[in-house]
Structure formats: structure tokens, C-alpha cells
């Protein structure tokens, strides 16, 4: 079923990856409907908070404080987590994180592992590595389960199966769970998933989770979720491994007061999310008796060192930027070629790839600014998109192949005209003459060659007027001016 590639190293460029979605009316309907619903709920709950802007400021400064002293807070987290009976591992990159996790599972002699709330495991492509090591990964988040059974990939940060409709879920469950007469009634579908998952919760002794927050002060991990399946994963197994990016750390326990408020409202449009699990290390006789935390860098510390881009690491993965984005609304998440889609993915993925891949993503935005407006931690996404575009251009413009590229040629030429008004007037005159060739009797241009064809594909362009403004101005009487 899935031709979706969420590996930025091999995924097609965004404009190309978007095409199958643009031609899929069902998918576009699902995405538009789901984002409309979440956005409306979010807007209502944000509007009732009179101190929303103050909360945003507070959340941004909590994350900034953590990022400014990241080494210290991570060490503090490690110290407190170890003191509470946990084991902390440091992973420089995806390969090291995979190796650490597989080693732990081998030591546990695990043949399978249940998983919850870990997009980061998608980032490091953990599941294929587990399969290669002979360990079956079982997704227990309902949406992730749907995708796993349907051999599909997540398309949204908070609602991973947002692009899948209820009847598609019914079809997947019926086929994979052997339930021929399953109806597409939501309760029936949920019950089928519950029966399927309960067996796993009760029989699989190892689990992998992600983390929403790591608390330095107490060495605690916090996971928020809506289903309770996370709670099962976090409490029933004998051994729990939490995989977390290093940017997840916050300084103090009381910072959760701010973060949990803005996260629930921004992500799902709820005053409080249904299940919030916070634990510190191991509690003897209660819950997992072995607890590992894998702290993942994988490109994050390189982002930390950059003034503008550093804001990216404030992200709490609420996906409000996806829900409001007019581009995401058309394309859904798969077009971004990474587990992180939408505006945040457009800035995060290229940075995690050190701009060696995913160079089309910083351009996958009209810079409309809707993402910045809703971001609960005030990440100026348009500013970072522009910064990354500049880095792409600086890298590309040195290449010989780019010299004759129409975009690069055009940009260099435009600057030559724009930096001298005589040259600019000359260009205006010649554009007027040149475009006459393409201008119809109605005074409009309906078809242009080369890059212009990308415009006239769906829009006309009015032919150039006989007189520019500056020519008109020069003819006006000067008295009184």
C-alpha cells in the first residue's frame, strides 16, 4: 500500500512528493476536515485564556533557559534519574541510539517490544532495525497501530493517521485482525483495537516510549496521551526504555504547569490532556523494575550553536503549526519526506540533515506566517525558513551546474537591474517589448515559456501596460511638488 518515503535522504523533493496527494481527493478531504476540527477546538480554548500571550512567553523562556544551559540540565537529569534507579545512555546519532536500544532488548532476551508515543523512534528508523535484529515492534498508540497494520506511515505529529478515514480503518482491521464482519462504527473499531492490544500489554515484558518532557530537577520523564495505552506501556512491562531528544529537558518540575497547559490546548484543543504520566526512575515493586533513558543528539547540538535556528529546539511537538498551515492543508504530511511534517518539519528536517538532504523543504512555504502566530513557544518559523533558504543558496550557487539554472540566472540578473535605476528602466522597457510576443488580443498573457510556464499553468497575467509609473510621474507638472 505505502509508497510513502519518510527518509529525508532518499525522499523525492517536496514539489514532486506533493503531487500524488494533490491528485487524491479522499486524502485532501481527510486532511482538511481533520485540521479544521482541531483548529476550531484550539481557537476556542485559546480564546478563553486571557493570559495566553503571557503563557507563550513563559513557555518560550522556560525552553530558552533549558537550551542556554543544556549541558548542565542534562547532567542534572542524568544524576537525578540514576539516583532514582534509572540508567541513562547518551547517543550521538541514530545508529548509536539504535545500537543501545537493541543491546538492551537483547540482554532482556526480548522477541517483541511494545511502543508508545515515540516519533523520535521514527526519526532514527528504529522499527526496521528491530526487525533486522529479530525483534518485533508493536505500536500501541491507536493511530500508530492503524498505520503499522496498514503498512502506512504517519502524516501528522499528533494525529499520525489523520489521513486515514474510518472506512479505511475498518478495512485494515478486518483484514489484519481477521474480523470479517467488523462495522466502521468508532466504538466497534476501538473495541477491536482494545482486544488486540490488551493481549500485547499483558504478554510483552519490554516497552519503548518517547518523552514529552524530561525534568532536570527531579530526573522525571513526562508523557502525555489521550488513550491510556501509553499508561499501559509505561506501567505493565518489566523493562522500559525511553528514547528522548536532548532538547526535551526542562529545568524544574513546576515548569510542567506552563508546558502542560499550552501543550494540551495547542495540540488537541483540550484544557488538559486525558492521561499525563510522570515518573522518576524505578519504584520498587511497582511498574517497570528496569528503566533506561536514551538521550539522543542526532544533529541537535549543531542546531543549538546557531543564533536564529536555535529556536527550533523549543518545539514541543504540538502540531498547531501543521493544523493552521495552508500548505500542509493541501499536501498532508507525507510530502515532507520525514516523520516531522508541516512547517516545523520544513525547518527541523533540513537541519537534522545538516542541509545535505531535504533542501526543498525550506521552500515548501508561502511564508504566510500562520505557523508563527499559533506556535505556543513562539518559534519564528518564517524567519528560520528564510535563514535556511539563504544557506541552501550559499551552498548551491558555488556549483557550476547552477550557473545556467534559470532560477539562479534570473535572480542574479534581477539584482543587476535592481541595483541601478537606469538598468531597471532598461529592463522594464525590454520586458514590455518581449512580453508583447506572448500577450493575447485581450491584453493578457495566457502562456509563457520556461519558468513562466509554472505561472501560466493555472493563472493568466495581465500584459505589461504601455507606461510605467515612473514614466507617468516624469510627465506630470512639477509645481506644488
Amino acid at each position, binding site marked *: 500500500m505505502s509508497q510513502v518515503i519518510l527518509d529525508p535522504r532518499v525522499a523525492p523533493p*517536496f*514539489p514532486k512528493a*506533493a*503531487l500524488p496527494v494533490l491528485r487524491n481527493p479522499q486524502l485532501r478531504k481527510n486532511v482538511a476536515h481533520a485540521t479544521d476540527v482541531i483548529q476550531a477546538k484550539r481557537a476556542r480554548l485559546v480564546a478563553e485564556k486571557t493570559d495566553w500571550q503571557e503563557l507563550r512567553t513563559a513557555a518560550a523562556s522556560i525552553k530558552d533557559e533549558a537550551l542556554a544551559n543544556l549541558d548542565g540540565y542534562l547532567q542534572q537529569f542524568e544524576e537525578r534519574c540514576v539516583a532514582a534507579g534509572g540508567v541513562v545512555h547518551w547517543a550521538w546519532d541514530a545508529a548509536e541510539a539504535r545500537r543501545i536500544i537493541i543491546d538492551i532488548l537483547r540482554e532482556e532476551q526480548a522477541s517483541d517490544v511494545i511502543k508508545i508515543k515515540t516519533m523520535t523512534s521514527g526519526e532514527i528508523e528504529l522499527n526496521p532495525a528491530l526487525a533486522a535484529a529479530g525483534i518485533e515492534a508493536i505500536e500501541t498508540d491507536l493511530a500508530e497501530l492503524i498505520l503499522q497494520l496498514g503498512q502506512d506511515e504517519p502524516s501528522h505529529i499528533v494525529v499520525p493517521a489523520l489521513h486515514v478515514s474510518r472506512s479505511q480503518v475498518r478495512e485494515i482491521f478486518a483484514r489484519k485482525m481477521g474480523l470479517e464482519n467488523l462495522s466502521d462504527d468508532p466504538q466497534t473499531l476501538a473495541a477491536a483495537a482494545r482486544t488486540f492490544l490488551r493481549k500485547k500489554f499483558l504478554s510483552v515484558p519490554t516497552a519503548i516510549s518517547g518523552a514529552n518532557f524530561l525534568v532536570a530537577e527531579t530526573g522525571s520523564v513526562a508523557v502525555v496521551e489521550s488513550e491510556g495505552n501509553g499508561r499501559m506501556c509505561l506501567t505493565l512491562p518489566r523493562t522500559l526504555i525511553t528514547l528522548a531528544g536532548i532538547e526535551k529537558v526542562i529545568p524544574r518540575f513546576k515548569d510542567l504547569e506552563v508546558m502542560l497547559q499550552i501543550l494540551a490546548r495547542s495540540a488537541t484543543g483540550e484544557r488538559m490532556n486525558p492521561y499525563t504520566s510522570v515518573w522518576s526512575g524505578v519504584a520498587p515493586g511497582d511498574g517497570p523494575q528496569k528503566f533506561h533513558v536514551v538521550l539522543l543528539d542526532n544533529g541537535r547540538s549543531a542546531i543549538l550553536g546557531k543564533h*536564529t535556528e536555535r529556536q527550533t529546539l523549543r518545539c514541543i511537538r504540538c502540531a498547531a503549526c501543521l493544523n493552521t498551515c*495552508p*500548505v500542509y*492543508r*493541501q499536501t498532508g504530511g507525507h510530502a515532507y519526506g520525514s516523520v516531522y511534517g508541516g512547517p516545523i518539519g520544513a525547518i527541523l528536517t533540513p537541519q537534522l540533515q545538516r542541509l545535505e538532504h531535504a533542501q526543498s523543504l*525550506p*521552500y*515548501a*512555504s*508561502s*511564508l*504566510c*506566517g*500562520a505557523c*508563527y*502566530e499559533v506556535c505556543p513557544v513562539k518559534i519564528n518559523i518564517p*524567519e528560520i525558513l*528564510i535563514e*535556511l*533558504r*539563504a544557506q*541552501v*543558496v*550559499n551552498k548551491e550557487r558555488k556549483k557550476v551546474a547552477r550557473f545556467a539554472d534559470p*532560477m539562479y540566472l534570473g*535572480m*542574479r540578473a*534581477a*539584482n543587476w*537591474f*535592481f*541595483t*541601478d*535605476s537606469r538598468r*531597471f528602466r532598461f529592463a*522594464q522597457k525590454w*520586458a514590455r517589448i518581449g512580453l508583447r510576443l506572448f500577450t493575447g488580443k485581450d491584453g*493578457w498573457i495566457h502562456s509563457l515559456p520556461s519558468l513562466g510556464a*509554472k*505561472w501560466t*499553468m*493555472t*493563472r*493568466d*497575467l*495581465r500584459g*505589461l*501596460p504601455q*507606461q*510605467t*509609473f*515612473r514614466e*507617468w*510621474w516624469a510627465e506630470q507638472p512639477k509645481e*506644488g*511638488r
Partner: protein
Amino acid sequence: MRASLFITCYNDTLFPETGRAAVRLLERLGVTLDFHPKQTCCGQMHANTGFRSEAYAQANRFVRMYQDAEAVVIPSSSCVAMVRDQYPGLMQELGTPKLQEQFRSLLPRVYELSEFITDKLGIEDVGAYFPHTVTYHASCHGLRGLHVGDRPMRLLSKVKGLELIPLENVDRCCGFGGTFSIKNAEVSSAMLSGKLRDVLSTRAEYCTALDNSCLMHIGGALHREFAGTRTVHIAQILASTDATSAEGVA
């Protein structure tokens, strides 16, 4: 009151009627205008596409050109947003201390047209007459960049004969985004198609905005579809009076 008109590169070349309307409108409101003949572009296209040093070269010209202006009025919210949001970074990175100082002093004197009329001139009723149904598209840069709020609507609501019809999803981007409309032409067109649906469902005769860039995009598709609804820059509506019909839209 004296003001210098920065007409912008594409208004100069593609939409001179907007510039002429801005002149008629502002002179009617008692403003003495000048037009610096060496002006070209604010640098937005280069900045937004990633050509930073080129964008700086143009920003540099802009700042030096207008350092003595009492006010600079620009009939385009995205060009003003370029000056407010992107010039500071460009100046800090590439500018000399002298240019940075000149920029700091110039910045508060740069106005988008509707801001200039409502805030600087303190006028809402500009004495315009435009007997048509009109819907207003909130350009992203005006809305979220400049936070112009309801200034354009206040101006439009005082225009005699004008019936303002609200636009659904007024805050949603039309998909233009400069070179985005070329680089991501298909996605841009998909966004535009939603905007057209909203514009056409108003059944308004005209769609207006603060920016001819959005209007060129929306208008280009309306023309392609023989839709009947036309686009017109807000300056042309505000310039039109009983005596003169809106130039270029009659």
C-alpha cells in the same frame, strides 16, 4: 505633510494605475508627494528566496535613498514587512554602523498606505465613492507581519456606495508567496483554488487587498476562469470619487 512614495518594483512595472491612484488619493488628502527617481525594489524577492547579499544590496539603496524623507509611504504590505522584519537582520549582518544608524532612524517613518492614512493623517473617511460590492482579502504580510488589523476595513467601510462583503477564511494565504508560486506551482495552485472558491462565493464584483502581489495571483486565476469578479488595489478604491471613476477598473 510631505511624504515620499516608494511605489515598489512590480507596481511600477505591472500596476502603474495603483501608483497613480495613490498619488491622487494622498494629494487629495493634502499630502505633498515626491518620487525618488532612482528607486527600484526593496529586496524582498531576493531575501525570501535566499539571496541575502543581493537583498542587502537593495536594502542598502533603500535606506540611503530615504534617510531624509519625512515619511515613506508604500502601497504594499509585504514590502513594508520586508523593511520591518528583514532589514534589521540584514543590516546587523552586513551593514556598516553608519547604515545601521540610518536604518534605525528611518524605520519609524516607513508606512504602509492604510497605516499612513489612518495613523499618520488620522483620517478614516477619505471622501471616496465606489458604488460596487467588494470583498477584502487580508494579505498575510499586512495581517500577521504588520498587524494592520481593521485599518483597511475602517477605510473601506467609509467609502460611499461601497458594500463590503466578508470573505470566508479571510486570514488564509492565497498561495502566492513570491517564488513559491513558481517553485511549488502545483501546491500554490491548490491553495489558490480554495481562495477562489471563497472569493467567488461572496458574489462580490471586486476583490481588494493591500498588495497587488496577492491580487495578481487571485486575479490571474479569476481571469483564466472567466469568473467575472475582478481584483483592484485598495488605493484605487480609495482614490475614486464621484468625479472620477476608479481608474483601470471602470
